[in-house]
């Protein structure tokens, strides 16, 4: 029981790797850096497997397994320990995170080879792994928040990794700031939680919530749920805070695969699932989760239809798939959400890594309009990416088929037929834009200069992780395949002790359930086929059609192309007023005009105002004194005559 007693080892491994590479990596050879980074993540994965083995020996009474290492925040009666927790949900997350991250570490040794900041890159990557593990293993909300902020920070560092590109640096900052908005809500949620329950660790909070009645009208649980949701929306890039994720594609592709597809962005889903008890007791908040998830799923898919940057298509696809996970949680099928989280981690990581391989092969090209015909030139990449596409599109018996089916089934069965309809529409769109991608990249005629670009398959270290992930993308679904398909609902049964089973499930008689399941599966297959056929027809049979369509429906096309102008909207509504306030009002008016009347042309703005200001004859120290007097007038007036 070594690891169960010493859960911290799991955290210490990547942290040590990060510290070693961060401090000394610059002086080490590539081989040493590789060994440290891949070793740290590999050992973490091995530790996760060992943890699984040990975990299997625990009895139900011992769960959740919490180990507290030291008391962290103590204030009056408030306590938050540095405590780690393992239960089924944590275990699934830990396995997915360490496993995928190990593969991506291996892949990166090939992809990033020769980069100037090689050691730095791996230091950040290991650091990210540390925080991500902290996030999923924390036994209380404040500690979870530490991991939460930590992954944000490392993602910020990694997005801006190629900082010589201004766009990369800006994207990093955007990601961090947009996330802060969500985090703000999240933190308030934690405060409110603590305020209500005088505790912040999962065990006591959930026990207390279970005692409470279900809130049919908005109450404190609803407020907590909505605030936590705000945080989750930010981190998991849902409407309306999704804007940072597409820009985050400025980071190196392995980063996109690990952080912006497989792990970090799913943290929001994890938090919602972790807080399942709260959401089940606050149906209003839960409905909000479902609606936001469903809208995001369709909305992002529509944007994905017309994007031309290979990574951006995948980014919008990620947003859309995360929407499905939220939808699952929102209709009470938390296990289905986690299931989709897992399969999505496999196939989306694979898609990104394969996309990275394509970009690598074409020497940095990312525009799918300048690709095409790569099928035979990079067969491994093509084969694995095709597998992933089939998985995400929901081709029968691939992993995505089972997980997406489970979600759509849950949506329908819970009585939210509208959400089911939208979800199915999203599935059509998904199949369409994914096959569009495949056809444009790998089929047809090459649209790049074949003389100038020497297309080459990626080295073994990159293709092997692709193959492993492809295998997982195919078989991963069987972990939770329902009985209907000969599976055993393994994952769902595994997770049931932690996650509330949906209430509507009990209402169904078994035979009716199966019939419904079969019908809905059929619908899902039809949806996927429809999307595939449309893409096939438009991009392989009638390659001139898309341009015509775009020309005929110029207005909607432009709307999609410009991503519904949301970035512009935000800039106009939020960023600019703030900058305006700060620059115009505070800086120019207050500081320059009032405080600094006699400024004899120092700053640019001051010079413009100079003439007028000289006439104002206001001096510095004296204007400061004037402010003191203004304050004094207000304070004395307020205290003496107003306050009783």
């Amino acid at each position, binding site marked *: 029981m070594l690891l169960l007693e010493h859960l911290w080892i799991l955290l210490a491994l990547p942290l040590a790797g990060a510290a070693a590479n961060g401090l000394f990596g610059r002086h080490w050879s590539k081989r040493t850096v590789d060994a440290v980074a891949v070793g740290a993540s590999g050992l973490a994965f091995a530790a996760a497997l060992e943890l699984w083995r040990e975990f299997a020996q625990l009895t139900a009474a011992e769960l959740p397994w919490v180990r507290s290492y030291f008391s962290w925040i103590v204030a009056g009666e408030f306590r938050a320990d540095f405590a780690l927790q393992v239960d089924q949900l944590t275990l699934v997350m830990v396995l997915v995170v360490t496993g995928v991250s190990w593969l991506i570490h291996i892949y990166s040794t090939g992809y990033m080879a020769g980069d100037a900041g090689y050691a730095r890159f791996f230091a950040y990557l290991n650091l990210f792994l540390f925080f991500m593990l902290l996030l999923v293993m924390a036994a209380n909300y404040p500690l979870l928040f530490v991991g939460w902020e930590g992954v944000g920070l490392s993602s910020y560092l990694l997005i801006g990794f190629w900082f010589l590109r201004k766009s990369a640096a800006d994207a990093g900052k955007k990601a961090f700031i947009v996330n802060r908005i969500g985090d703000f809500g999240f933190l308030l949620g934690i405060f409110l939680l603590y305020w209500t329950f005088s505790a912040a660790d999962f065990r006591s909070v959930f026990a207390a919530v279970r005692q409470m009645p279900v809130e049919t009208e908005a109450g404190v649980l609803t407020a907590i749920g909505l605030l936590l949701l705000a945080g989750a929306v930010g981190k998991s890039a849902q409407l309306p805070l999704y804007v940072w994720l597409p820009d985050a594609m400025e980071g190196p592709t392995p980063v996109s695969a690990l952080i912006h597809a497989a792990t970090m962005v799913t943290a929001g889903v994890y938090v919602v699932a972790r807080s399942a008890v709260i959401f089940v007791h606050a149906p209003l908040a839960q409905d909000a989760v479902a609606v936001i998830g469903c809208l995001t799923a369709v909305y992002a898919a529509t944007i994905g239809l017309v994007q031309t940057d290979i990574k951006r298509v995948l980014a919008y696809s990620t947003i859309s798939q995360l929407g499905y996970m939220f939808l699952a949680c929102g209709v009470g099928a938390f296990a289905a959400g986690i299931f989709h989280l897992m399969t999505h981690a496999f196939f989306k990581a694979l898609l990104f890594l394969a996309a990275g391989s394509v970009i690598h092969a074409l020497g940095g090209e990312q525009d799918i309009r300048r690709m095409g015909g790569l099928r035979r030139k990079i067969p491994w990449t093509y084969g694995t990416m095709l597998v992933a596409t089939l998985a995400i599109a929901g081709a029968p018996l691939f992993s995505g088929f089972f997980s997406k089916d489970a979600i759509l089934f849950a949506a329908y069965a819970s009585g939210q037929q509208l959400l089911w309809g939208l979800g199915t529409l999203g599935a059509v769109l998904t199949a369409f834009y994914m096959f569009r991608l495949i056809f444009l990249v790998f089929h047809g005629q090459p649209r790049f200069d074949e003389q100038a670009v020497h297309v080459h398959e990626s080295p073994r270290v990159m293709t092997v992780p692709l193959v492993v992930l492809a295998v997982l993308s195919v078989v991963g679904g069987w972990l939770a395949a329902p009985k209907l398909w000969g599976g055993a609902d393994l994952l769902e049964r595994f997770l049931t002790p932690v996650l509330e089973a949906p209430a509507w499930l009990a209402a169904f008689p078994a035979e009716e359930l199966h019939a419904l399941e079969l019908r809905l599966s059929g619908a899902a297959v039809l949806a996927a086929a429809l999307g595939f056929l449309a893409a096939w027809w438009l991009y392989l049979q009638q390659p001139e059609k898309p341009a015509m369509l775009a020309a005929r429906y110029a207005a909607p096309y432009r709307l999609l192309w410009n991503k519904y102008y949301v970035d512009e909207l935000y800039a106009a509504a939020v960023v600019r007023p703030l900058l305006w306030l700060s620059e115009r009002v505070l800086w120019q008016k207050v500081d320059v005009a009032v*405080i600094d009347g006699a*400024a004899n042309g120092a700053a640019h703005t001051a010079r413009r105002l100079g003439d007028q200001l000289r006439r104002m004859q206001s001096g510095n120290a004296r204007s400061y*004194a004037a402010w003191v007097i203004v304050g004094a007038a207000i304070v004395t007036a307020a205290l003496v005559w107003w306050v009783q």
Partner: protein
Amino acid sequence: MVSPSYYLTLSAILFGLGVIGFLFKRNIITLFMSIELMLNAVNLAFVTFSRQWGELSGQVYVFFVIIVAAAEAAVGLAIILLLARNRQTLNVERINLLKL
């Protein structure tokens, strides 16, 4: 017997004049003099209250205030001298390298 409020009013007027001087003078030394004027007003208030309460602490406080004023004057005038030497001006409005 003069009512204490007369003394206090006088004190408030002197304090106000000190504030006005601080805000409207340009010569740094006169700015500083205005502060002395304000301190003087404070002393008057202390003495008045001391008399009113029949309690001597107020007078002791004034003694301290005067000591502080002396120390402040020494340091303040040293700073002003230094500045005058370096900048060749005593106009408070020209002391504006630091701003924005």
